[in-house]
Every structure is written in C-alpha cells, then in structure tokens.
C-alpha cells in the first residue's frame, strides 16, 4: 500500500468507526464490536506504516491549500510515529476497558460517548501526522472541541462547570497565545513547515524569539504547564476511560508533543539552547513538577491525585524539550510513551476500584489488595514505572532525563528530578502498599468487593505488560527516537 493511502486510512478509520457506532446505537453489542474492530484496524494500519516508512524519504500529502504557501498537509516523522503508535495501541485497549467499565457503571448516553471518543482519536491522529503548524493547530482545536462532550458526559451542573473551565483555559491559551505565535512565525519566516533543524534561527532578535517561545509554550495549554493547568483536574469529572486515554494520553500528550515539535522543528534544538527564555521555562517546568507533586500528596480523591501526577509528569517532557540538548529530545520522546503506558494503567485501576468497590478516596483503600489483588499489583507496577525503577519502562526515560540535565549542566533540575522521584514513591507507591499491608478499619470491609469486570481486567493486564516489556525491549523505541535528530 502506498504511504499516502495509509495516511488517509489512519484518519478515516476513526471517522468510519464513529459513523458505525452511530448507526448501531440501539444494539450495544454490535456497537462495541465496531469500536474494537475500528481500534484494531487503526493499530494495524499504524503498525504497517511504521514498518514500511523510510524517514530518509519523507512523504507529504497535501490535503488543501487555503492560500498560497499555507496548506493542510500530512507528513510522518519519528516523533509523530511515536505518538501515533502510542495512541493507536492504547485506543483498542481502552475500548476493551470501557466496555467493562461503562456497563458495570450503568452510564447513560453510551453511543454519544463512543462516537465522541472515536472522533477524538481522529483529531489525535491528525496531530501526530501534521506536516506544519497550521494543520497541527486545526487538529489541536478539534481535539478540544470533540473531547468537550466527553468531559460534560455526566450532564450535571458540576460537569458543565468543569466543561467551561476545560474549554475556557484550552481555547483562551490556544487562540490568545498559540495562534499569535503561529502567525508571528509565519510573518517572520513565510513558512510553517516542520523542518529539521528549525526555521526560526537568525530570523529575528533573540529577545523576540525568546518571547515567541514563551507564547508557544504557554499557548499549548494542553501541556498543563503552571499556571495553565487547572483544566486537567477539572476534566476528571469525565468517565474513567476518558480520563485514562484522553486526559492521561491523547490530549495531554498532544500538548507536550506540540511543544516538542515546536522545539525540534520550528526553533531547532540549537536555538533553544541559546535562548534565555528556554532556561526560565525549564525552571518553571521544574517548579511545576515539584508543586504538582506536593498538591497530589494532599489530594485524597484518587483521580485528582493521578491528575496532578500527570501535570507533574508532563512537565518532565516540557523540561526535556527546553534543555536544548539532543539527549533531552530523546528522553522527552521516550517519556511520552513510557508515561502513557504507566499512567493509563493507573487510571484503569482507579476506574476498576470505582466500579467494583465504589471507592474514590485514597484513604478508603486500606486492605483492598486482598480482594482486588490483580488490580492493585498492576497499580504497584505502574507506580514503580512512574518513579523510574527497574525492571519497568519508566526507568529508561528517567535515566535519560537525568543524563540530559547533566548534558545541559543544570544541577538544579537534576535535583528537581530526584526529589520528584522520591515524592512519587511517597504518594503513588504508598497506595498499593497500604492496600496490601494495612488492615481495613471496618472488619466487614471486604464484603461485596470483587475483582474488576473481565474486559477491564484484560485491558489492565495488557498495559501493565507494556510497562514491563518496554524495560526489556526498549531497542525499537530507542532506534525510533534516535532518528528525530539525525
């Protein structure tokens, strides 16, 4: 199959899935089979693309050209492939999980849920494949809009308020800052193409370029850099599968992915290294890492704690991109994948605890490991991956991150990363340990609690296995990220 056809398929499969889901709205079994089939075919196509694509001969597919020089176009590069593979793999897994979760939880409007979910994946794939800033921006905005019905899914007043926060912060930053930065880039260089080595070097005074970088980073609200992070905890009112795939993987990773793309292909990593503002942004990312961890520690609601942990982990990637060294770019890209698998596992577990035991608070989980051992074991492994301990995938990206801070001679950030690991150990790993070893206060605690629904359990096992496999088989991923900076 030609590469262009694969591009088109990647975008069209989620859309067809959405239509299929709509058509089968009153036959739940068929509807969910459609979702799974759509997910697996998408994964198949992305894998096919990964195997046949040669990065030395990039293929561009121009869809439209609204005006001269400015086009909507698709082109795959290594960073985009990382993102597409992660999202493409986790979508069918999440669909599997969602079947168990949504049924056990008796959620309403499931058709709307699966439709919006599929369209969100379409937007995510468009982000991953975008060949220039305009395409990326369009897909970025679509992702915000399509995920909104998922955030407000419950239809309660709280959900609606959360929806406003979500839309307000994401749209304000993207239109106010990101779009301004994009048009400014266009005005300085006359192009928006992602070009290896960057397009901005030498086009303006360093002060202006520095300001532009600040606009780009703050404009990408999806990366949840403080002070524009409030939308992420707000989005936690959504059903857990949404929090798992979209607000731990697709949406937030779209944010850091945008920052990485801008750093590598718009500014160029050498230019980033020379800009003062990049240094200050990396420090702000360091601040976000520590303060989000501290907030997470004080959150008793499990999903809120995970959300703040995500904010902290996203800033790892922003930090890596802002260091302006090659090892930082590789560490950041690898961390996109590693964190995705670990964090989605944690959210899956949180959702499993909610549907099986009806618990949402960390303080209620003492002793739950006896009745839900598989879930809590998965939780433990995923937490360890986030901390960055072997034998889990997260250790590689953590290791590289530490190395990148040393390459950039930034000892402060090195310390930040180490402290953050300790904090992770405390507020994430503590949860499964207490679940296994602490005694429940109520002697009848275990009554009526059983393991998660089978579909959900399978999904949890797949992602946990992913965390382990990445430790032993990191080479393919490593080869991929090495090609980002040839």
């Amino acid at each position, binding site marked *: 199959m030609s590469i262009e056809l694969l591009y088109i398929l990647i975008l069209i499969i989620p859309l067809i899935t959405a239509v299929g889901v709509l058509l089968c709205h009153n036959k739940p079994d068929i509807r969910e089979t459609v979702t799974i089939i759509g997910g697996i075919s998408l994964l198949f196509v992305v894998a096919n693309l990964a195997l046949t694509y040669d990065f030395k001969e990039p293929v561009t597919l121009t869809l439209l050209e609204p005006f001269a020089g400015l086009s909507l176009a698709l082109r795959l590069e290594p960073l985009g492939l990382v993102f597409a593979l992660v999202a493409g793999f986790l979508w069918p897994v999440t669909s599997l999980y969602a079947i168990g979760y949504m049924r056990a939880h008796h959620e309403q409007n499931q058709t709307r849920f699966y439709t919006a979910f599929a369209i969100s994946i379409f937007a995510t794939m468009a982000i991953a494949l975008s060949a220039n800033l305009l395409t990326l921006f369009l897909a970025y905005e679509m992702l915000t809009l399509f995920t909104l019905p998922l955030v407000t899914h419950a239809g309660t007043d709280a959900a609606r308020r959360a929806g406003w926060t979500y839309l307000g912060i994401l749209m304000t930053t993207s239109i106010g*800052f990101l779009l301004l930065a994009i048009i400014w880039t266009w005005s300085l260089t006359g192009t928006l193409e992602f070009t290896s080595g960057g397009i901005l070097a030498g086009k303006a005074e360093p002060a202006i370029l520095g300001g532009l970088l600040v606009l780009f980073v703050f404009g990408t609200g999806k990366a949840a850099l403080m002070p524009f992070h409030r939308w992420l905890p707000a989005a936690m009112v959504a059903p857990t599968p949404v929090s798992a795939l979209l607000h731990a993987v697709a949406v937030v990773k779209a944010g850091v992915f945008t920052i990485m793309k801008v750093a590598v292909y718009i500014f160029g990593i050498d230019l980033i290294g020379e800009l003062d503002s990049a240094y200050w942004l990396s420090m702000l990312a360091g601040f976000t890492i520590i303060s989000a961890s501290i907030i997470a520690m004080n959150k008793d609601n499990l999903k809120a704690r995970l959300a703040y942990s995500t904010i902290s982990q996203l800033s790892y990637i922003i930090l890596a991109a802002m260091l302006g060294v090659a090892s930082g770019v590789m560490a950041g890209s690898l961390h996109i994948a590693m964190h995705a698998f670990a964090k989605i596992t944690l959210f899956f577990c949180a959702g499993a605890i909610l549907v099986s035991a009806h618990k949402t608070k960390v303080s209620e989980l003492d002793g739950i490991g006896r009745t839900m051992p598989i879930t809590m074991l998965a939780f433990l492994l995923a937490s360890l991956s986030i901390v960055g301990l072997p034998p889990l995938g997260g250790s590689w990206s953590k290791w590289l991150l530490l190395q990148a801070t040393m390459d950039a001679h930034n000892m402060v950030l090195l310390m930040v990363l180490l402290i953050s690991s300790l904090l992770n150990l405390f507020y994430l790993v503590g949860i499964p340990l207490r679940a296994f070893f602490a005694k429940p206060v109520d002697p009848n605690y275990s009554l009526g609690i059983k393991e998660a629904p089978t579909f959900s359990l399978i999904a949890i096992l797949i992602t946990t296995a992913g965390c382990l496999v990445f430790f032993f088989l990191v080479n393919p991923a490593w080869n991929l990220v090495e090609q980002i900076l040839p």
Partner: protein
Amino acid sequence: MNLMTHLPVLIVVVPLLSAALCVLFNNRKSAWLITLLASFFCFYASINLIQIVQEVDVIIYSVGGWEAPLGIELRIDALNALMLLVLSGSAVLVSIYALKSVEKEIPVQNQVLFYTALLLVKAGLIGICVTGDAFNIFVFLEISSISTYALISLGHDRRALHASYQYLIMGTIGATFILIGIGFMYVMTGTLNIQDLSQRLPVVADTSAIRAAFAFLTIGVGIKAAMLPLHQWLPNAYAYSPSVVSTFLAATATKVAIYVLIRFQLSLFGIEFSLLQMPFNKILMILGTIGILGGSVSAIYQSNVKRMLAYSSVAQIGYILLAIGLASEPGFTAALLHIFNHALMKGTLFMALGLIAFRFASTELSVMSGIGKTMPLTMAAFLIGGLSLIGVPGTAGFISKWYLVTALLDASLWPLALVILIASVLTLIYIGRVIEVAYFQPAPEGITQQKVPKSMLVALWIFALSNIYFGLYSDISLGISSLAVNQLMGVTP
C-alpha cells in the same frame, strides 16, 4: 443593443424598476417572485462584471452616452466588483429566505410594500457601489436609507418604531454631513466626478475648506458605518427589525458605508492626505480597537441573542477600521477580506436567528434551551457561523483573522495582534453562552422537534457552507481583494 455592455447600469435599474413593478402587481406572491428574479439578475450581472474587471481592470460606463464630467459616469473596479458580489450574493439568499419569513412576521397588508422597500434598499446599495460620482453616492445612500427606516419600523416589536426613529435621526445627520462635505468639495474644485476630484483636490488640499469637507464626510460616513462612538443606532435597529431585514443589513449595509469610507479616503483624498497627513489612520486604529473590545464585551452581557450579534457587528466593524488604519497593503487586503467574510458569518447567524424567531417569535436566550435537539439543522448552521466568527481554522473567519494579525505584525504592532486574539476569546464566550443553552440545557416540557420551512433552511445552509468553502479555498475572495488593493494603491499618488 448588447446586454453585456449595459450591465453596469442594468444592475441598478433592474431592482429599481422591479420595485415599481411590485407596487403595480400589488400581490404578495408576485412581489416575492419579482424580488427573487431581480436578485438573481443582479447576482448574474455581478459575476459577469467581476470576470470583466479581472480582464480589463476598470469598467467605465457613461449613463445616457453623456461623457463625464458633464454626464454621470459609472465606474467599476475590483473594489466595486467585490462589493457587488457581497451585495447581490446576500440578496439572492435573503430573497429565497424571505418568502416564509415575511409571511410569518409582516402583516399581510404590508407585505407588498415590504418587498418594494427591500428592492429599493438593494437598488440604493448597489447604486452606491457602481457610481463614479460623489453626489450620486449621496443620492443612492438616501434611497437605501429611507427604505431601510421603513423596513425597520415593520418589526413586530413596538420598540422597532423607536429603533427606526433613532436610526432616522442619526442617519439623516450622517447624510446631511456627507452632503455638506460634497458641497465643500464642489465649491473648491467645480466637479463631482470622483476621478476628476482626485486629480484636482491635491492643488487645493491645504485649505480649511477641504479639511472641513474631509471632516464632514468622515463623520457622516462614520455614522452610517456604525463606527464607535457613533454606533448607538445599530444594536436597536438590528435587534427589533424583521429577520429578513436584520440579515440583509448585517451582511451588507455597514459594509457599503465602509466601502464609501474607503472610496473617499483612498481614491478621493488619497492615502497620503487622509490617513497620514490628517492623521486619520491613528484615529481609525484607536476607534477600531475600542470598538473591538467594547463591542465584544457588550455582546457578552446581552440577553437577546439578536442584540448580542448586533454588538458583535460593532466589534467586527472595528476589525475592518483597524485594518484600514494600518494604511498598508496587507492592512487593506485584510479589511476587504473581512468585509467579504463577515458578510458570510453574520448572514448565517442572523438567518439562523430568523428561523428561531419563526418558531418561537423571540430571540431571547431563554427561549433557546434545548434547541440543539429540537432544531438541530438550524443550530448546526448557527454553530458553523459562530465558529467562523471566532475564527476557527477551516472557516472564512480564520482567513480574515490570519491576514489581519499578519498585517499587524508586519507593522510591528504585536500588542494589537494580541488584542485581536483576546477579542476572539471574548467571541468564544458569547457564542459559547448560546451553544451551552442550546445544546446542554434540556428543552422545556412539551417542546418537540420543530418543523421549519425548507426554503429558509436551504438559504441558511448555503450561507453556512460558504463559510467553510471560503475558509478552505480563498482564491476568489483573496484574489479580488488583492486586485482591489493593487488598484487602490496604484491609483493614489
């Protein structure tokens, strides 16, 4: 006689005579049919004129064979052609839409007169955009204005009378100012032909009479264009007039006033004199910026959606004025593009509101709860128009925002670029309020799927889809705009 060579004059004469025909037939169905046919003819004519303009640059037509400066000269360059396209295109859609909307909103005995007045407004506005004679502009402006007063007063709300009266007072002051301005120029130069004037004015430019003329003209046209702070007539006029009228006015009337502004400032006085020497560019930029922010913020606080969109129009006019104030090639291109694209967005939004008014006899936000489910097609079109107004990529609004922000950055005015984008966020807020009520609030008990006339939906959707078409393919809009800018910059010294 070759029809094609007489198109410049026919495009005015046909709607003018059709208006008379309406009264003669005195039957509402035939009145509508005449309006529709006249609109289609104008649209056909404007397409042809655009094609001719792209080949020969300027069409000059002497009415009755009398050469200027003795006779009246019609003069169509790319800017005129662009305006004609906007005018006649909106007119066609509004005419299709009018049949059912007028049946519902206008008392039976007034319906024929309604179509007559509508045709007169069209004839007047088109006349402004074809003539090459300053006094003629005033005459056509009055034809369209007086008919507009009548149309607004036909709104079913009693406040429409007050709104119409308010507009009448303001509009008359504006027209008088324009007449005084033209008078001064005539005294100083002895000609009314714009081409002649532009050649003779520089000689006498440094006199107080010409400066006074400039001031009178600018303020007069400023009132018509609802330039802040002369905009007070607009929100009421739009909010209380019949749906057909508000749609047509929002898509065209203020744009024509801005056309007159551009014509006087650039072709007649010249960029050097009007924008830099007077220095009108700074004033335009300041007023434009205040208009953008003030209009957007006021829009957020309206409970009537029609009024909200009217304030949004004040903001959008601010964008155009700001772009003109830049006095640069990208600035003018952005202004013309926005004239075109804004007609598409506001046409869509007001038409959608007209359908809602058709069903609920009100455009208050409170009647719109759950309307996303009960009137799905109408609200989907509203959503497209709203996204275009916000400037989401893939819509026409994005193209104009892009050009405007690029023009501002070219002039190193990045704080103003930020203002534009903040205004987009404000737009998001007021459009978002409507969307939330329509899609996320349940419909009141007993309200089910609402039937709406197909003809109105068709017109609405052509408008809505054109927002997307011109967002993805800007060859036509951008091509004519840049041609017009080249001519404007070339003509002026």
